[in-house]
């Protein structure tokens, strides 16, 4: 019987990358990219509201993180997630985009990015989702459509539909949970 290797935690991954230095621990770097790429992408979508800009952010932040780790320039290896989040925030604030620099870095780090660039945000079965949407109560469908078409907050949706923001949040929450259950039931 094979023993399953324990999954390294964030700090262990960071230590392996630092220890390898210029020799590169490709496995650890790939795991770091696999683990954090979806989170960086979510951060980018939340703050930049653009798929393309979020994809750029994923590359920029992972490049900087690996570069700093390889150079031994990350001080608190036990707080890797905080370091990467801080890098996300600073990158968005700076809005820095240097094409030439990115190309050079991408050449250096390309093996890790083969994994990070995989689409981890697997799309739902559209037919199943549409069927579930059609079976929602009318209010829930109206609120979910008007919310998620372009990510509008409860007060805006409420104004348009004659509902209070609190009422919209309740309807929205019920709708999301009902839709999630429906999609999961049909999947299983």
């Amino acid at each position: 019987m094979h023993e399953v290797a324990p999954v390294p935690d964030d700090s262990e991954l960071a230590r392996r990358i630092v220890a390898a230095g210029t020799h590169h621990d490709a496995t650890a770097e790939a795991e770091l990219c696999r683990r954090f790429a979806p989170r960086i992408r979510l951060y980018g979508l939340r703050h930049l509201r653009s798929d393309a800009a979020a994809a750029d952010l994923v590359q920029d932040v992972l490049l900087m993180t690996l570069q700093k780790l390889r150079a031994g320039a990350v001080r608190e290896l036990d707080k890797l997630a905080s370091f990467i989040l801080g890098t996300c925030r600073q990158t968005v604030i700076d809005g820095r985009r240097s094409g030439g620099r990115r190309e050079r870095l991408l050449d250096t780090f390309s093996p890790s990015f083969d994994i990070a660039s995989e689409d981890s945000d697997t799309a739902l079965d559209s037919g199943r989702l549409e069927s579930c949407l059609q079976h929602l109560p009318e209010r829930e469908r109206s609120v979910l459509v008007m919310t998620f078409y372009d990510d509008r907050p409860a007060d805006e949706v409420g104004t348009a539909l004659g509902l209070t923001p609190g009422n919209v949040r309740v309807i929205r929450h019920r709708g999301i949970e009902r839709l999630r259950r429906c999609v999961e039931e049909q999947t299983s």
Partner: protein
Amino acid sequence: MSAFTCSSNADLAAYWLGELDATDAADIETHVFGCDHCSGRLQNLVRLGAGIRQATVAGALHAVLSPDFVRRMQDDGLRVREYRLQPGTSVACTIAPDDDLVVSHLQAALADVERLDLVFEDPDAGTQLRMQDLAFDRAADGVVLASNTRYLRQLDTATRRVRLLAVQEGGDRELGTYTFNHSRYGA
């Protein structure tokens, strides 16, 4: 709000939609970024939202919307075919190959309505579908109904009727009947 506490689904939605103040949003963001479980749940929410958006753009559902929402979709470049009907009137209608959405503005006096239902009738088949408890703005002069474009595209020549009903003690009160005489585009 503790940075070490997993967020509820409702809080994750509020964070995603920008409803929280800066401190609460930063707390949730910090926690989610370091938490596999919560980042996975947020990703599922975002995926669900993207699916809803795609279904909306594809015209793959019927729903009551608002006039402002329809305008936003038009501003985004979607081709929206619109019909405007007073109570008791009919319209000749269709769907063109390049239409993304078809919406009907059903005029009605809603000021004193507590609950609004919509009944969709197929007079030929003698069937009806009742959409219960619509979201509507009493200050508006009617409701906007988006039709499922896949359903419309497979219709040949057909008549469909929509009735708006105020649901109240003592029975339903009809606010209007709207008749759609549909034909295939170009026919």
